[in-house]
């Protein structure tokens, strides 16, 4: 990849997104675990559960702030680095981001202050409400962000407006209830729950191995194992495969994940392992399991899953349609006002306007898509194939980890039920070693979703290369290096404080049980 403005902007986005996503899954999951632990405290009145909530809350806080800090960069960099994108789709994409702020992040950020500062100021119920508000806020936050992201993958409920030269919303309902977005939401928050569960499980296992804080560690493990088992089953079973077949490109993403170059007779075989070769356009040494892919992908024995070659052929047709749409758009724009535009051009654009994005793929090769040669179309059509080896291995590693998490949380769930958590020390060691793995899976999930979307920023609508700001490469290189430096420092500081807090362990909680009702609190003072 040569380092032009597009590559640099993508690198900067990926750096920020991947870094941001180191902190988000733990926030999502740990906020819910905190709420569960505190609920147990309020219901049973046992102060050990308050101590647990406070201890995991400290770790939550250290993690949370970096997520917040990098979240601002996430929101601002669309406008900074992707200004044509912002101009082109802001009418649709901006709304979920703004609603996320209003509905979710405000709630989360306002109550997180009370979570930390409100223990002595609030009644039991009042503080519990604040904790649940944080959990609810962070999860709603994920919902709206994934509605925005889902629209990038499957741009429903919108159409191009020649008068404003941008995409505009036609149905907010369709954008909100986009099936891809809903599937992604379930998948992503479940992954967050798994991350937090395995984090709590691993840290607690370390305490058990060292014979420290046994009461806190055992109880935490029980909560984490049961919550984590449910969540890891949900990640795999309700994974976002349900969205894959709904659009053109999700089919390309699937074919790339599978390294499936040619359409196979239904039901297609699953490539367990192999070595995809982008240049030769084939997958070497494939070990196949007959029928499995067809079953997972289509839930039928007869529907075919298209291979990459067939999808590229389809893309060529789309590009030709796109050129006609582009031509009609120019005719419409040339007319002095909308009404005077030639009826024929309007009709053509009405039919083929949704393929306009495919014409923009040609901008890499010709200035005016209408002058594209067959060779240009061939090249642009092959551009619609994402990086197959990356997709192939990222997907397999992620899925493999997903099954491992089920096994791990399931084992500890069983041990916890038999009250035998610390009987097998090697299992505790496995739990400690497993701590970083959910993060690896989550980052790979991002790679599968977003590398798989290339070459599009908005699937079928706007190519990534056309979406960037007209900035100098040196300018973006400067900020990229700046961000990398900041993130590296933040990461070191964050990890240092995290490890310190874990080594230090929970503060002793000797205080009395807090009163239940607000009135009682005043009386107690």
């Amino acid at each position, binding site marked *: 990849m040569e380092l032009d403005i597009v590559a640099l902007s993508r690198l900067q986005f990926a750096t920020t997104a991947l870094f941001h996503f180191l902190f988000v899954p733990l926030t999502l999951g740990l906020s819910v675990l905190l709420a569960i632990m505190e609920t147990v405290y309020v219901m049973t009145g046992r102060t050990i559960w308050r101590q647990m909530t406070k201890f995991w809350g400290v770790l939550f806080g250290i993690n949370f702030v970096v997520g917040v800090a990098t979240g*601002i960069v996430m929101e601002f960099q669309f406008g*900074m680095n992707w200004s044509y994108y*912002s*101009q082109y789709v*802001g009418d649709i994409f*901006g709304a979920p981001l703004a609603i996320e702020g209003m509905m979710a992040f405000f709630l989360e950020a306002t109550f997180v*202050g009370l979570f930390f500062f409100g223990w002595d100021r609030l009644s039991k119920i009042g503080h519990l409400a604040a904790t649940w508000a944080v959990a609810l806020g962070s999860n709603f936050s994920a919902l709206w962000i994934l509605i925005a992201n889902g629209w990038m993958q499957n741009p429903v409920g919108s159409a191009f407006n020649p008068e404003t030269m941008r995409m*505009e919303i036609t149905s907010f309902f369709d954008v909100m209830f986009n099936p891809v977005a809903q599937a992604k939401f379930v998948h992503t928050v479940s992954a967050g729950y798994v991350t937090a569960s395995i984090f709590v499980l691993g840290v607690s296992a370390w305490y058990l191995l060292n014979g420290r804080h046994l009461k806190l560690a055992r109880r935490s493990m029980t909560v984490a194992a049961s919550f984590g088992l449910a969540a890891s089953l949900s990640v795999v079973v309700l994974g976002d495969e349900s969205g894959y077949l709904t659009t053109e490109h999700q089919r390309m993403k699937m074919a790339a994940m599978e390294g499936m170059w040619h359409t196979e007779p239904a039901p297609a075989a699953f490539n367990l392992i192999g070595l995809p070769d982008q240049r030769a356009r084939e997958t070497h040494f494939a070990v196949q399991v007959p029928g499995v892919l067809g079953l997972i992908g289509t839930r039928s024995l007869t529907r075919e899953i298209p291979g990459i070659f067939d999808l590229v052929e389809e893309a060529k047709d789309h590009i030709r349609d796109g050129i006609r749409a582009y031509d009609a758009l120019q005719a419409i724009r040339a007319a002095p006002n909308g009404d005077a535009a030639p009826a024929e051009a309007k009709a053509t654009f009405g039919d083929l306007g949704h393929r306009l994005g495919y014409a923009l793929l040609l901008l890499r090769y010709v200035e005016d898509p209408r002058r594209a040669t067959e060779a240009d179309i061939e090249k642009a059509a092959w551009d619609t194939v994402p990086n197959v080896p990356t997709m192939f291995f990222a997907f397999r590693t992620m899925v493999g980890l997903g099954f491992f998490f089920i096994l791990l949380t399931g084992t500890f769930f069983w041990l916890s039920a038999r009250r035998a958590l610390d009987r097998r020390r090697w299992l505790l060691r496995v739990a400690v070693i497993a701590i970083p793995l959910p993060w690896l899976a989550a980052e790979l999930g991002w790679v599968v979703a977003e590398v798989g979307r290339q070459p599009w920023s908005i699937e079928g609508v706007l190519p990534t290369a056309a979406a960037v700001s007209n900035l100098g490469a040196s*300018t973006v290189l400067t*900020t990229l290096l700046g961000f990398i430096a900041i993130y590296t420092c933040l990461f070191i500081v964050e990890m240092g404080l995290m490890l310190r807090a874990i080594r230090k362990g929970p503060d002793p909680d000797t205080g009395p049980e807090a009163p239940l009702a607000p009135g009682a609190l005043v009386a107690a003072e």
Partner: protein
Amino acid sequence: MILHDLIAYDTLRLIWWVLLGVLLIGFAVMDGFDLGTQILLPFVAENDLERRVVINAVGPVWEGNQVWLILGGGAIFAAWPPLYAVSFSGFYLAMFLILFALILRPVGFKYRSKREGPGWRAGWDWGLFVGGLVPALVVGVAVGNVLRGVPFRFDDAMRIFYDGTTLFELLNPFALLAGLISVAMLTMHGAAWLMLKTSGPVETRARGYGISAALLTAILYALAGIWLWLGVDGYAVTSTVVTDGPSNPLAKSVEVAAGAWFRNYEAHPWMMVAPALGLAGPLIAAGLMALGRGGLALLASGLSIFGIVASVGLAMFPFILPSSVDPRSSLTVWDASSSHMTLFVMLAATVIFLPLIIAYTTWVYRVLWGKVDARAIQDGRGHSY
């Protein structure tokens, strides 16, 4: 969905222009006292305990306050996409500076008191100072540049081009003056907040700095008004204004004229309320601070911020981002908004959620009411920073 026709397109645009102002003022008023407190941190506190008192004065609330900025960004993206696209990329390096400062801030608050070492804590204290000063300064400088016009233009496909918006060019004298106003104004606001939330020597010092900052705000604001009148050309639309047409900035013609930024005030004298507040507010705040009335001073400085921000918006109306190199490309309320339906949906969401936000924010501030207790910090009670 025909629902959105319930409110006319031009009415929605006007409402969203007002809401844009509400969000910017909301950010400046709410997060403003956090930024001001950070700026004052090295000056009003002389030992570690005092510094912790200052930090804990904003500790529980800065996170919620910061969402005004995040919501502002999101709302500009959703309601004014061309404004979001042009300003964030046009002020690229300035935005990077703001982001840098805003990253320092949350980690500074959260991490500073987690370790004992004096080097560690002093380092984060400087981080917090920079994290308060830089956003305050850069946002002010940006507003100054917006008043002068920003060198951008659109091509026929609405791609955005910039003719030289290097960081250096942004730092012209008028914009720097605007930046100083912003810093002085937020310092005044932070001082009023500290007077309300602290006691003893910190409160006394905050009062001293607050009075100076307030007086400086009034003087600099008056100076900027005169400069704007004499030395900065305004913009005016010369073609027929279509208020409910498609959002296409290129469909109009625009002239650059001396004094054009004052035409709204000539035509609608009631608008003078805003600059009057901007001028009188800081003076009243200074007086109240001298009398030791922190709460009322906070109210007065909040009103000053309202007046100062609103006076800029009203002067420029209907412009929201004028272009100095291709005035026709300038963004106005009537040609830079989202579609009719998006504005309507966003308004519906705002009508539902904004009152809720205000309600629970008020509740949280009530729970946290009262001065910061230095002893509680020393004892490590209440999970203080």
